[in-house]
């Protein structure tokens, strides 16, 4: 049969059970202005750490048939300030620096002597839209070999003609689908898509795939992560 207790004792038991829920109050820390920022930073940092662990260097992003391509005219152009930073193509070079054996200025013609790869891959924007595009260029890993990059370094950073800047973890930089892209849809990059050279990284979200590249650096230390990351976006954002 049931045990029988008096009401006061039952109230005591109930109260004790209620008090056992107090650890949940810890979640209230997210509502405290002074704690909110560091907590969310830690949460995003944990997500980025997990993203890095989930990244598989040999796992390829899905590729698509030509019939799946989004028409070039419907491939969105997202910039942070200007569509065309006015790059002088005749004088353009990619300046390579940092942990590389052959630093210096590389012309587009020089870069194009490396094997060319084209791919139909999905371009995913952090905003939520996605398109399937055709991209052509050289593997970033091939280029890094050419310049004698120290691939044990942690990061690769890029500067753009429009002051945009980005950084990339080395594992993603060495991924076979990560391209220094100079063509879209079989045509040289147009200015608004990042001519003469942009990053195409099917394993990363759009804002990582910087346009109008001017500088590339291999490094272990980064002071700035990226234009959007430094405002609070995910630093890794691997797809």
């Amino acid at each position, binding site marked *: 049969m*049931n*045990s*029988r*207790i*008096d*009401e*006061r004792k*039952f109230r005591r*038991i*109930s*109260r004790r*059970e*209620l008090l*056992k*829920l107090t*650890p*949940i109050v810890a*979640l209230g820390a*997210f509502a405290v202005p002074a704690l909110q920022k560091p*907590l*969310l*930073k*830690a*949460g*995003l940092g*944990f*997500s980025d750490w997990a*993203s890095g662990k*989930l*990244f*598989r260097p040999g*796992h390829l*992003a*899905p590729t698509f048939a030509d019939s799946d391509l*989004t028409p070039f*005219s*419907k*491939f*969105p152009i997202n910039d942070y300030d200007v569509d065309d930073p006015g790059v002088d193509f005749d004088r353009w070079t990619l300046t390579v620096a940092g942990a590389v054996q052959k630093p210096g200025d590389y012309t587009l013609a020089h870069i194009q002597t490396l094997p060319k790869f084209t791919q139909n891959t*999905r371009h*995913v*924007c*952090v*905003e*939520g*839209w*996605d*398109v399937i595009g055709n991209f052509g260029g050289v593997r970033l890993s091939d280029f890094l070999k050419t310049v004698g990059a120290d691939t044990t370094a942690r990061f690769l950073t890029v500067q753009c003609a429009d002051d945009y800047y980005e950084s990339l973890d080395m594992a993603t930089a060495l991924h076979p689908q990560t391209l220094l892209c100079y063509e879209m849809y079989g045509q040289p990059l147009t200015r608004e898509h990042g001519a003469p050279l942009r990053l195409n990284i*099917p*394993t990363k979200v759009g804002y990582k795939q910087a346009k109008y590249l001017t500088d590339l650096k291999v490094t272990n230390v980064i002071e700035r992560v990226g234009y*959007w990351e430094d*405002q*609070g*976006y*995910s630093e890794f954002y*691997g*797809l």
Partner: protein
Amino acid sequence: MSTQAISIENVKTGEVTEAVYEHPLVVRICHWVNAVSLFVMVGSGLQIFRAFPSFGAKIPQKDLINWPKAFAIGGWLGGALQWHLTFMWIYLATGLVYVGYQLFSGNYKQVLFAPRDLPGVWPMVRHYFFFGPKPPVTEAYNSLQKHAYTSAIGLGVLSVLTGFAVWKPVQFSWLAWMMGGFHLARLWHFLIMWAILAFLFGHLVMVVLHGWNNFVSMLTGWKEDPEYLSK
């Protein structure tokens, strides 16, 4: 089915009532943590959705709805993503602890919908929605409740799976593929949120209808005077 039942005696009046320990501590903690997580996930999710409130093409963009900022968390896309990518781990961990605890403790038996509950669903629906007679209450959860709570867990699992497909459409390309690709996975993720909100609406209506003792049981674990014990 009840794990622990006691009789409470009021020393003054001599009145005796029954109480049953319906909700173990782990279940109660998971319930309330999840209530917070769900609030944050939905609020931040809607702010993320505001960045591209469409499931069609980007060009031309046809907005589905201009979701008001007042019903969103995070202030801007980056802020909302911070909330979403932080609380998704809390949401996931809570789900794993809850399901793991239910299975290990055997507590799932009182709430998991099983084939034998099937005949009891329609009489409950008839009672709630079509003024049918009230079926006798024989256990802590009736057939329709079991159906609802079991479905809610299923929706929770789907919200995580569709979420992972949206977050990692390359690393979990098989998940995204199963959902018809990244583009549709995003739509499923959105629809499952609304399904969860529909459950939540029904849940809250029932909480209001079933009164104080029922509500308190999710705080203290003890349900006083449960209907299924009354003679």
